[in-house]
């Protein structure tokens, strides 16, 4: 068997694929964060909580109302999106135009509240969510067993990422959004309802996180705390990509998934630190991230 640095090629290919899948996941999460930062200049520390809400809602809606996976895939992001709009409307709007740090603290506070309340309701051990029947099993590839569900995750995550990127970079609505973030007052002066646009954008950004949450529900332990650690990593991804760069968030997300996967193969203990190491190195040479515009 061909070996690369003592690792069989087959294993390595499997790891690369797994890394790629996780990368698609990161991409989805960091995309929402990048949109919210890029377009609204809000550092959304509630993003992890929204991801968790997506997963938790999926489980809770199933347990109480019997809502199935496919409906949840649509409903959970919608509900979380609406929740996001409310947060924007009642809280974030009041600190518009203030220093970034305030949005960071505010959303961090919101995350603590959501997480704390849900911990008291649902505990920390996690909730059960069975894999939908049609995704049970997998494909036997040459080098690994690929569960159907992972294949589905990668397809749907990439589609959503691409669709979002297209909407923001290539459509008129996207142009409104980009311009609105530079000078929202002026955009309003042109006849565009910027406050509404801002609410919707925040709602959309967190809905993306919730969407990732739904995707996560069958494969990860669903607990109120599940977003907290993911958050910091996803933040790192956005920063490496260049805060606010939509395409950058997607590409970096995938890249980091792969790098992390390789680290898990060659030196597993470092796999949670490697992203931060990459971040330090990248920012040494590119102060605004890989795809960021100079400030």
């Amino acid at each position, binding site marked *: 068997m061909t070996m690369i640095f003592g690792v069989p090629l*087959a294993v390595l290919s499997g790891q690369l694929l797994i890394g790629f899948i996780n990368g698609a996941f990161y991409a989805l999460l960091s995309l929402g964060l990048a949109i919210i930062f890029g377009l609204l200049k809000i550092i959304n520390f509630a993003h992890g909580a929204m991801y968790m809400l997506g997963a938790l809602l999926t489980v809770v809606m199933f347990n109480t109302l019997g809502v199935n996976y496919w409906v949840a895939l649509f409903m959970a992001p919608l509900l979380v999106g609406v929740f996001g709009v409310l947060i924007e409307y009642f809280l974030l709007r009041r600190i518009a135009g203030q220093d970034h740090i305030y949005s960071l603290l505010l959303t961090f506070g919101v995350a603590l509240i959501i997480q704390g309340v849900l911990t008291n309701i649902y505990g920390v051990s996690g909730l*059960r969510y069975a894999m939908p029947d049609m995704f049970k099993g997998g494909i036997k590839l040459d080098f690994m*067993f690929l569960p159907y569900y992972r294949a589905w995750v990668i397809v749907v995550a990439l589609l959503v990422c691409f669709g979002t990127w297209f909407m923001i970079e290539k459509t008129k609505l996207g142009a409104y959004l980009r311009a609105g973030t530079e000078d929202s007052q002026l955009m309003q002066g042109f006849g565009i309802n910027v406050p509404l646009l801002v609410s919707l954008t925040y709602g959309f950004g967190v809905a993306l996180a919730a969407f990732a949450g739904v995707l996560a529900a069958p494969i990860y332990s669903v607990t109120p*705390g599940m977003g907290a650690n993911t958050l910091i990593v996803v933040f790192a991804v956005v920063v490496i990509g260049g805060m606010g760069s939509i395409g950058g968030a997607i590409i970096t997300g995938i890249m980091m998934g792969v790098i992390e996967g390789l680290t898990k193969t060659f030196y597993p203990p470092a796999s949670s630190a490697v992203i931060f190491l990459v971040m330090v190195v990248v920012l040494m040479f590119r102060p605004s991230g890989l795809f960021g515009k100079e400030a």
Partner: protein
Amino acid sequence: AISDNTVKIGYLADMSGTYRDLAGPNGLKALQMAIKDFGGTVNGAKIEVLSADDRNNPDASSSTVRRWVENDKVDMVAGLVASSVTIAVSKILEENDRLGIVSGSAASSITNEHCTPNHIHYVYDTYPLANGTASAVVKEGGKSWYLMTADYAFGHALEADVTRVVEANGGEIVGSVRHPFPTQDFSSFVLQAQASGADVVGLANAGSDTTNAITTASEFGVTQAGQTLAALLLFLTDVHALGVDTAQGIQLTTGWYWDMNDDTREWSDRFMKETGVRPTMVHAGIYSSTLHYLNAVAAAGSDDAQTVRKQMMDTPINDMFATNGRIREDGRMVHDMYLAEVKTPAESKNEWDLYKILRTIPADEAYRPLSESKCKLVTN
């Protein structure tokens, strides 16, 4: 005599963080059940309970306990989950000569290198968990092992224990991976475990790491492909979260299970009425240890730490929680442990019907023998 005519118990546990379900608010309920069952007073003295969230933070906890001990005259501290908190608190208790009963912590070092004459480790520790599960699995033919170890002191200790037991029983560790704590996605590691071709995949981790690893293993068809999963530290709450669908067939060691006999069932019915959930071994242990403590106070007629501890050590423990229980001089309460297997969906009749007990591990075999102890209280 009982100081200021009150027995004060401080309950310190994680009320809001990662270990909340293990002891947490429900542990406080168990403690209060014990006091009620005892009758509410000891030799006419009041029993008072203080409680606090340990925030999983040793310095916050040590301020709390210092104040409890120095200002509030607390006689005994119960609960105690995160090992960093337990160790910090036990030092303060030693300094001030009060008693601590540790029910939540897993680290076997608590009665080993960190032992003090002022605390008792009651429910379980990693040694019997690793010991029981590993030797049972090896004996059933799981000779070659692949270990997934949480990369921190606790995981390392567990790994060392397992390795020793596996090798002693004629098995072999063919590979291992140290994953960061915490990890959400285990697919890389599961893939490596599959590639290793080992008979058994041992999980030397805890909490959400373990449940995530098990979920991923099930998704990647680890057991279908003929490998056995052995979880070295798995609680009832974890299995409940995973569901029998995912967790079926996993073997584990536990100190207690709610559905073992009429006594356990009777008590856990009462507990469930209070809390809405079935008790874990930690909840039961808090109940049992509190009763044992109060009985000792009553018998000794004093709440002085050393007097009570001696009394507790001199009295064997046989109640709904423990069979053949006794407290050794290192503070370790040893009692029978049980090898259990997670039921299949067909066997499980309700959401809490999760284990079948395969066999009993006698108290003397289960725990680390005193001859291997590094505790300063043990003279070999």
